[in-house]
């Protein structure tokens, strides 16, 4: 059993970055995720593992530091909250285009604009529909506990390097700020410079002796070459869609209805599920873990089996519900329920929505 600690979600994310063998963290303070860089600065990972930590002048700079560092084959990470993630979108598009591995964590807060500093899930579209320009996708992991804030960091790095892509971890102010027991995984070694040089021949860390120079770029002025590059990216996204869908089913075997939720809403929906079951409503929970690639296939299977309806529970005006509707394609009832602007729905409100919108609707 690993080391047990009582930690905030943000602290668990930071500690996991060190333990996952990250080489660099570059970030900028923003509520409700500032504990990530505060923890790292206090923890001095440059003494523990040699990991670099730097407070950048802006989120624009920190995402471009990921481009530079990730482009040399090093394991790099940043974190921010919604407005800061908006600022990073240009950089994320470049990282996707140049196929640079990195991890970006978004501790989502209420929007749009400056919004507030309360938990929200209104960045789903930005995360999975391409917040920046161009045809790209980002594998997106959605932790729903402090434990997963830690556990998903090494998974995110593995995905990032396996597919040479930026990977998002999308939580929210609730998961980031709350304290829970977390079992920390053991320290993983950082790769040496020589190992990075050998392992990632695409990386720009000094031209190999007698070899060709390496170039990291997202530019190709020849449209036919750029189309070919885009096809290569799309083939990669297809492979990710085929292999990396993650979800969890809770009380779904006999379910007539399903809540579909991720992150904080999935925690709330588990309580709603108990309340509904006490009332005799056979409802289960499909907890979405990868916002992209999306669990369309399991939704299709439940639809085929004759499920009576899906209620998407999100702290947003209804974003993920669109992907559920695409998977269901009109064959059964799909509705959304969620509070907006940083208001957290109660388990009772969710049950009420199920009764009114799906069962009685």
């Amino acid at each position, binding site marked *: 059993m690993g080391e047990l600690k009582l930690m905030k979600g943000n602290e668990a994310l930071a500690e996991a970055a060190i333990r996952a063998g990250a*080489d*660099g963290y*570059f970030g900028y303070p923003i509520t409700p995720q500032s504990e990530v860089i505060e923890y790292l600065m206090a923890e001095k990972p440059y003494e523990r593992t040699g990991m*670099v930590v*730097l407070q*950048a*002048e*802006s989120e*624009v*700079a*920190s995402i*471009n*530091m*990921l*481009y*530079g*560092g990730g*482009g*040399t084959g*090093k394991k*790099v990470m940043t974190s921010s909250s919604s407005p800061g993630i908006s600022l990073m979108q*240009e*950089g994320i598009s*470049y990282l996707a285009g*140049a196929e640079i591995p990195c991890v970006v964590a978004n501790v989502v807060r209420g929007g749009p604009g400056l919004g507030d500093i309360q938990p929200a899930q209104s960045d789903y579209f930005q995360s999975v529909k391409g917040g920046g320009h161009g045809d790209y996708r980002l594998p997106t992991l959605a932790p729903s506990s402090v434990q997963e804030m830690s556990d998903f960091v090494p998974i995110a790095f593995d995905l990032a390097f396996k597919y040479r892509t930026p990977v998002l971890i999308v939580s929210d102010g609730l998961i980031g700020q709350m304290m829970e027991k977390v079992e920390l995984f053991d320290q993983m070694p950082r790769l040496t*410079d020589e190992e990075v040089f050998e392992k990632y021949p695409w990386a*720009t*860390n*000094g*031209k*190999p*002796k007698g070899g060709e*120079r*390496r*170039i*990291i*770029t*997202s*530019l190709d002025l020849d449209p036919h070459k750029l189309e070919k590059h885009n096809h290569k990216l799309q083939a990669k996204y297809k492979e990710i869609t085929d292999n990396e869908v993650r979800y969890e089913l809770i009380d779904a075997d006999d379910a007539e209805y399903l809540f579909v939720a991720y992150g904080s809403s999935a925690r709330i929906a588990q309580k709603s599920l108990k309340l509904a079951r006490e009332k005799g409503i056979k409802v289960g929970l499909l907890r979405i873990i990868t916002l992209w690639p999306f669990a369309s296939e399991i939704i299709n299977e439940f639809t085929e089996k004759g499920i009576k309806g899906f209620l998407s529970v999100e702290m947003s005006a209804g974003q993920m519900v669109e992907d559920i509707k695409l998977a269901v394609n009109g064959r059964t009832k799909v509705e959304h329920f969620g509070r907006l602007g940083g208001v957290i729905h109660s388990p009772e409100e969710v049950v009420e929505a199920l009764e009114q919108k799906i069962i009685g609707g």
Partner: protein
Amino acid sequence: MAELSVKDIIKPENLVYEKTKLMTDKTLSYCPGCGHGTAHRLTMEVIEELGKENDTIGVAPVGCSVLAYEFMNVDMQEAAHGRAPALATAIKRLWPGKVVFTYQGDGDLAAIGTAETIHACNRGENIVMIFVNNGIYGMTGGQMAPTTMIGMKTSTSPYGRDAALNGHPLKITELIAQLPGTTYVTRQAVHTPAAARKAKRALKKAFEQQINGVPGTTFIEIVSNCNSGWKMTPNDANNWMEENMFPFYPLGDIKVDGKLIESK
């Protein structure tokens, strides 16, 4: 006397100049008369002479030199507009033993990327920053740059740059020389053989400081021309540059060994 053949002349002992192998054979995308080609060559000659071909990572900008990575035969990254110093910051911090440089134009370094420029210099990132200032946006078709001279006509200042309307030309090099993070700040040109030799000495000094672990950012501005953007012949552009730009952007060292040079 037997007739002299070219073959008799091409001998190692007669060699007076050779293109550095750190420039690729790809045809430069720059207009005839442009200073970028010379600035590229000098940079690459210095890296070759310092024996750092396999230990150098360069960062290219957005602008006319966006394709610098096609011509410079070392590992290169192509940055988003203005962000080269952020990339270089991370590269150098993660690979402190490598030689890291940025190569940027005036719009990239002194407009959209001002924050990254100032903060990389203020942190004293151990990188060489090469700044080619030709007072115009060349690649996008000759728009006003932060360094465009007062009265200078561009496609977005068609009646000449007016300080009341467009603000003043930005002497960013003098500005960053004030920062304690910079150690060597100089302004050079490459439009004559003599100027190019001086610029090469400046580049060499900057790269040597990084290699020798002298703390601080080194910053080399190269005042250059844009004959197509300025709508002049190459010769006229060079003359105009000497007469109009050099008085405002005077050549020479601004800061050496961390100390500001008294203004002339």
